[in-house]
């Protein structure tokens, strides 16, 4: 479903990614960890086609993410640091718009709002800036996309909302959705693969076991 080969990215004069190779099959889920949050975010934004790679290729669903950027975007949804402007809309209006733009029923928007714990009738401008992350996550959930790219998307959730979202994501994975998650701490039970990004390269990979046992023992979520 996703194949990344020799991916490099220069951010200013700094090399954020220096030849990343990664492949994820349909229904696969990968947790990306590493000491540099910015580098992780760069990888996630590249996957989401929001920034252009310096070199290397990303192929998603058989489509090149650089030459076919708009067709690739139909396959994926991104939730991460991104501004959502209120424009005098309510939460349900925004989410229903995001869902219907991707030909999803309005119920998908309502379910997503409930999962992340948003009041559907609240005006977006009444939601605190830090809580607007929930809105981007809800929009991604409501999109029905085949690939979900979640960059620090769990930061804004409280424990019950995390539980609900994780449960939903695990179910989505079983339906074939690809999930790529970048978090400071592993979200237990969500991903079957863990990769670490260090100095722009993927250095270690573990399958079906958390990267950091100590972190896992502080298990944030039980699914």
């Amino acid at each position, binding site marked *: 479903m996703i194949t990344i080969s020799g991916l490099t990215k*220069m*951010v*200013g*004069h700094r090399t954020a990614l220096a030849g990343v190779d990664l492949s994820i099959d349909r229904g696969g889920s990968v947790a990306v960890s590493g000491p540099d949050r910015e580098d992780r975010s760069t990888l996630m*934004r590249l996957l*989401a*086609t*929001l*920034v*252009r790679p310096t070199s290397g290729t990303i192929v998603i669903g058989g489509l090149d993410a650089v030459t076919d*950027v*708009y067709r690739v*975007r*139909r396959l994926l*949804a*991104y939730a991460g640091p*991104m*501004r*959502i*402007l209120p*424009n*005098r*809309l309510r939460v349900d*209006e925004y989410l229903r*718009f*995001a869902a*219907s*733009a*991707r030909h999803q029923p309005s119920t998908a928007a309502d379910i997503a709002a409930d999962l992340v714990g948003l009041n559907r009738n609240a005006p977006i401008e009444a939601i605190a800036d830090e809580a607007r992350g929930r809105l*981007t996550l809800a*929009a991604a959930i409501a*999109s029905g*996309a085949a690939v979900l790219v979640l960059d620090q998307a769990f930061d804004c959730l409280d424990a019950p909302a995390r539980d609900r979202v994780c449960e939903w994501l695990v179910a989505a994975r079983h339906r074939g959705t690809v999930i790529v998650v970048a978090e400071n701490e592993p979200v237990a039970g969500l991903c079957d693969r863990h990769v670490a990004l260090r100095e722009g390269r993927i250095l270690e990979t573990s399958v079906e076991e958390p990267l950091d046992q100590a972190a896992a023992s502080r298990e944030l979520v039980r699914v």
Partner: protein
Amino acid sequence: MRAVVLREALVAARRPALVGAAIVSAGLLALFPIAWGVRGIPTLGGMSLYDQQFRLEWILALMLLPWTAARVIATERGDDFVGLSAVTAIQPSRLLLARLLAATIALVAVVTGALPVVISAQQMSAVPASRLVADQLALLAFALPAAIITVWWMQLTTDRLLGWLGAAATTLIVVTLGRLSVATMNQAAIALAAISVCAAAILLARADVWWRYLSEPRA
């Protein structure tokens, strides 16, 4: 596409500026005969009340339409616009087209809001209805270039005031040039509408390239 047009229209309809502009426009036009009577301003001799009011309508359109468009359109631009494209998986050109449509519809609403007042002046001055129709169609056609110029300016700048001032100045220059090139204001409006459709087509053709990626720090 339908979802985006509905969203842009909803955003525009929710802005108080839309109703405010319609009220100001209709109100000032209604005040004109009240202030000057059925003969209009005496120093503009030879011109009927309708003619004088039509001039005022054009002046108001030149000032109010860019302001209204700047105030009512959705505020995403630059990286926010790229983000909106990513969230919806809709190309920026289509998002922009929806915004242009919504802005044009909003401006048409402002112009048509003043129609009862204009019809009253036409009746008082005994001007043929065909002329009223032609004049109002020209003003409605002017909503298109006003919307396109303003949307373009609002995409260029993050400052709404600067966007409005830029759009108002550009609109004024374009209308002045148009008026100098053809015989009547109505012809100028129709010509500008035709030219603006071409300009919009160029803008839309480039939008998918300009707003493809988020901005990045330069190396």
